[in-house]
């Protein structure tokens, strides 16, 4: 259960960032500037920040569990 479980999610976060930007392009093509602006704002500023923090916290908890696991 090492950090390997996190490698796919870091990759998934990158994909989500690209996916958000491509959605923004689609919204421009659909002549929806308001929606494109909020999508770019959410998918580049909103979600990735929280996912990054959540991943960092999960990795931190894992290190603690492994360290507390070893010294028991």
């Amino acid at each position, binding site marked *: 259960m090492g950090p390997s479980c996190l490698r796919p999610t870091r990759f998934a976060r990158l994909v989500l960032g690209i996916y958000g930007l491509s959605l923004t392009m689609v919204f421009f093509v659909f002549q*929806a*500037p*308001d*929606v*494109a*602006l*909020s999508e770019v*704002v*959410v998918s580049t*500023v*909103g979600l990735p*920040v*929280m996912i990054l*923090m*959540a991943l*960092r*916290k999960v990795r*931190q*908890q894992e290190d*603690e569990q492994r360290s*507390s696991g070893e010294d028991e």
Partner: protein
Amino acid sequence: MNRTTRLALFGIAVAGFGFVLVDGLAGLPDFGNYHGVYGQVITGIGVTERHATDLVTALNFDIRGFDTLGEEFILFGSVLGVVLILRELRGESEHPNRHEADEHTFAGASEALRALGLMIVPALVAIGVYIVVHGQITPGGGFQGGVILAAGPFAVFLAGRYLRMKLIAPHMLVELGDAAGAAGYALIGLGGLVFVGVFFKNFLPFGIPGHLLSAGQMDLASAAVGLEVSGAFLVAFSEFLDQAVLVKDGSG
């Protein structure tokens, strides 16, 4: 169920559901020949009656303002949920060792990166305010501007000063901003009821369409939503940050 039976059940189910979905979507008129009546009526009254050139914001904050009230409280309720779920218990002590947290930077953050980081903060705030205020003229509005405003103080953290970020956006003040924005938007609706007799009706004078404060109470609504969204996202960011940086799991 173990994984294989779950995927097997899902395989059959998704085939059926996919067929149902596609059969329904096939009934839609061809992509591109839109002849809805609602859109044309709104386009007709948007600029003349409502003095707002960005019809999407006019719809969002005035004509269908009640939807946005529900949407703002989804944001408010969810952020309350984040605060509720990530609250520290008696067992977990939050002992910020000042040195490590203050200099909590990405290992290789050079001086140049920190300087650049601090420079973009005022730019972000300026863009955010611009988008919030010009909501009813050009694309944008309370929500989009609010998230950009929330990115400002967060850039301070990216530039390597976590505790400085807490000075700029202290948890208490930010939560107050979130609550004030949410209550503010509902109060604007109430203002319509008190002054003009119908909930959410416009009670402020109109300006010239295309000018800054031209759309009556919609500018106020956009500002209230901007305040709430930036407050809410900052509360969420700092909750997640506290988790990631400071809270050492005391219970082991």
